[in-house]
């Protein structure tokens, strides 16, 4: 995570350090495992994907002449008989942030080689993710029930339905993939694959706790995307 010790290499802080690291041999990101660097670049590429989705959404929403539905009403839930705006979305946000926290701690305990703690926290993260996907399914069915479809929308502009299902669907797919991996990693952690350096089933690479940090990066990214979707899709 932070500056490692490298034989024969003196770390400098800040931009000086950046220039020195960039100019050095062997690695540019000093002490960063290649898998972690790879995940970061992958996420950078994914940032462009989600940005393109959101930019398209902005362009689509901005240029339609038909009114956009009031999201605050469309996504309200009834508690008793009073509608509470965006209630479900608020809970989903809460769940996702909770799971992000547990993931961050799992990474910490992983590096401390605390197998049990790490495993349980990953499991908790996975369950949080699963809950999120479940609530999203509920939200989708509610909207579909009210007549919103990808190709039509009784509350206003067609594109509302299109963008809603596409963007949340794409995000939800990423959450689901994350959940699957979280379960697998929880299993592998409990089994001690990362302590023993057991080889991966497909990649045949030796297990290492750094993999948990790598998965964690992915999970935090999914959370990060939700922050933007929450702001731009639900609050706009």
């Amino acid at each position, binding site marked *: *995570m*932070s*500056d490692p*010790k490298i034989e024969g290499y*003196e*770390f*400098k*802080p*800040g*931009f000086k*350090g*950046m220039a020195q*690291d*960039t100019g050095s041999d062997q690695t*540019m*990101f*000093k*002490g*960063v495992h290649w898998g972690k*660097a790879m995940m*970061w670049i992958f996420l*950078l590429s994914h*940032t*462009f994907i989600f*940005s*393109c989705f959101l*930019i398209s959404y*902005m*362009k689509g929403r*901005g*240029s339609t*002449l038909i009114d956009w539905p009031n999201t*605050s009403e469309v996504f309200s839930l009834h508690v008793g008989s009073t509608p509470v*705006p*965006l209630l479900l979305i*608020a809970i989903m*946000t*809460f769940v996702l*942030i909770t799971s*992000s*926290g547990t*993931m*961050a*701690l799992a990474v*910490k305990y992983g*590096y*401390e080689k605390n197998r049990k703690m790490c495993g349980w926290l990953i499991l908790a993260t996975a369950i949080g993710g699963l809950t999120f996907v479940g609530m999203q399914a509920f939200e989708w069915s509610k909207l579909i029930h009210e007549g919103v479809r990808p190709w039509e929308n009784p509350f206003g502009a067609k594109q509302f339905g299109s963008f809603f299902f596409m963007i949340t669907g794409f995000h939800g797919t990423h959450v689901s993939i994350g959940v699957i991996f979280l379960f697998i990693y929880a299993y592998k952690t409990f089994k001690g694959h990362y302590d023993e350096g057991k080889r991966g089933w497909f990649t045949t690479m030796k297990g290492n706790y750094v993999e948990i*940090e790598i998965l*964690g*990066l992915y999970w*935090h990214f999914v*959370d*990060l995307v939700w*922050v*933007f979707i*929450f*702001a731009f899709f*639900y*609050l*706009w």
Partner: protein
Amino acid sequence: MGIMSEKEQSTTHKIGIYLWIWGLLFVLSFFSYMVDWYQLQGLLRWSLILIFMFLKAGLIMAFFMHLFWERYALVNVLLWPMTAIGCFIFLMVAEFQYTVFTRLFYFVVGGQ
């Protein structure tokens, strides 16, 4: 390696910092929910939404994803490409305004 402080050399961070960030994220989410709850409108709504959004995103990236502790070489590689996205956003705002203008002009006003 004289320049590094004690804290920077440890591989994991104290649990307190994670709990703090976690708490802050909840508070910020709550605030942004409140923006909708009180139905703030106009510039105020927009600036609050964006501020809370960027704060949350920043906290997640800086602490949960450890960017705050990473070396500048990595941080800069990740952040500079965002200028292309910034340019894309900026231009697409101009573009949708123009599309609305043409649609209003030709379909509503009638191109006169």
